């Protein structure tokens, strides 16, 4: 088991937003975290990264308990997190953004190899390496954010709403890129609202509603599931 979350509850101050959620990700697997707006999908990713630390329950990575390790230790363990709304460094160049992705020692040592590998995956980024990140389009910024995450040589890549606000063309490109990443042996855990799209890509899915896990399973079993439809269409 690469990532395992056991019975987590998450609170914002005194307000509980996640109730007893457990999930896991296997090596080389693409897993979708689904749910309507405000169901707590991003909160789960942020809890794994320890950006939110008001929590009960345990998080294991590679069979090691990591719940209490601070956020900055995650990349060194092999977890990269692409935050919601890309969050590239707006006033740094594409290349600088990418170099910052390889901050821990091991990633730094292999920085030039990673860079050429990533330019292979995202040729556009190489052409724009000296451009300031905020001058790029949303799709390009999303590519940059994912590429920056990959620079840390993750074993698990967590991506929050990768397709938000992107044109259908860019979405198509990203889907191919996700496939390529998984084929390299990197697991992906991503958050998405578009159920059909997410399930067409992912091996498995978890569906959240109001902070509780409603149903989980293989994508093909979830596509036409009545419970899933009910969560997204309302009762």
């Amino acid at each position, binding site marked *: 088991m690469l990532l395992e979350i056991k019975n987590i509850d998450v609170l914002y101050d005194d307000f509980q937003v996640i109730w007893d959620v457990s999930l896991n990700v296997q090596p080389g697997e693409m897993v979708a975290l689904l749910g309507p707006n405000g169901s707590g999908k991003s909160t789960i990713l942020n809890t794994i990264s320890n950006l939110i630390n008001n929590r009960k329950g345990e998080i294991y990575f590679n069979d090691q308990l990591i719940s209490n390790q601070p956020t900055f230790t995650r990349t*060194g363990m092999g977890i990269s997190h692409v935050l919601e709304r890309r969050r590239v460094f707006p006033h740094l160049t594409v290349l600088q953004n990418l170099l*910052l*992705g390889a901050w821990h020692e091991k990633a730094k040592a292999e920085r030039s190899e990673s860079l050429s590998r990533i330019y292979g995956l995202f040729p556009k980024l190489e052409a724009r390496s000296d451009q300031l990140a905020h001058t790029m389009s949303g799709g390009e910024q999303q590519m940059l954010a994912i590429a920056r995450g990959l620079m840390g040589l993750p074993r698990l890549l967590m991506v929050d709403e990768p397709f938000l606000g992107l044109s259908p063309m860019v979405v198509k490109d990203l889907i191919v890129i996700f496939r390529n990443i998984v084929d390299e042996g990197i697991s992906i855990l991503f958050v998405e609202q578009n159920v059909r799209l997410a399930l067409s890509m992912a091996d498995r899915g978890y569906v959240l509603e109001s902070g509780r896990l409603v149903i989980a399973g293989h994508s093909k079993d979830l596509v036409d599931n009545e419970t899933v439809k009910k969560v997204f269409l309302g009762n």
Partner: protein
Amino acid sequence: MSFEIIAQAIVSGLMTGLIYALIAAGLSLIFGLMNIVNFAHGEHLMVSMFASFWLWALLGLDPVFSIPITILLMALCGVLTHYFLIRFILKAKMLIQICATFGLSIFIRALAQFLWTPDFRNVDQPLLEGRIEIANVFIGQPQFFASLVCLAAFVMLYLFVTRTETGLALQATAQDREAAEILGIPSNKMFAIGWGIGLGCVGVAGGMMTNYFFIFTDVGVNFALFAFVAVALGGFGSIIGCLYAGIIIGLVESLGGLLIDPSFKLLYVFAIYLLVVIYKPQGLFGRY
């Protein structure tokens, strides 16, 4: 009014401007990094001048030679300030942050008055003394070297922030703390580095000013005010903006004093501040 007098005013404006620029850069670095305004910046300048003074008075070290020690002491002071105070108010409301650093300024000043009395002191017979004359323009030697050293420190600061990996990490933390943290850059360490460098800048300026300026417990007040004006004029968080703004302020101060009336020197500077706030609130090089 002769050409020489105007040239004289321009030269001295430039020289003080470079010192303002470095002091402002320290303030701007800290603000840009963590959105906290160091209201104790002037007191830190005062402390650095006293450090330099006592190194001279007790150990006989000329301020020029004690500069590295003064920088190190101030950098340490910055790291400690972060560790014992700022660390705890990072997520606090803005008013609390203001009160914390403003309170620190009162604390430092009161402590200095208690320890050293509010007397005015100065360094007798420093290494840098007297003035040189170039084409009828007199340049005070200590002022001249102070501005050169400050300019050199400014250039080094700029290269550090823009060309080194740690500088890059500082910029990343300044632009998006969470995103940097997620990539493995510990923001607390970056903040401590930022405070160390920010007050290190003040150490350079204070140490060099000890050569020719009176040392007393309220010495930092005006410099801090000018530093705030410089940061607002240059653009919040912009280091290069501080250089231009510092020079502009130095020139306005000395030329305004010469051409209009020297007793209103401060007024001209704050008039600029008001104009900037009204017409270009993001400053010359500001991003916000």
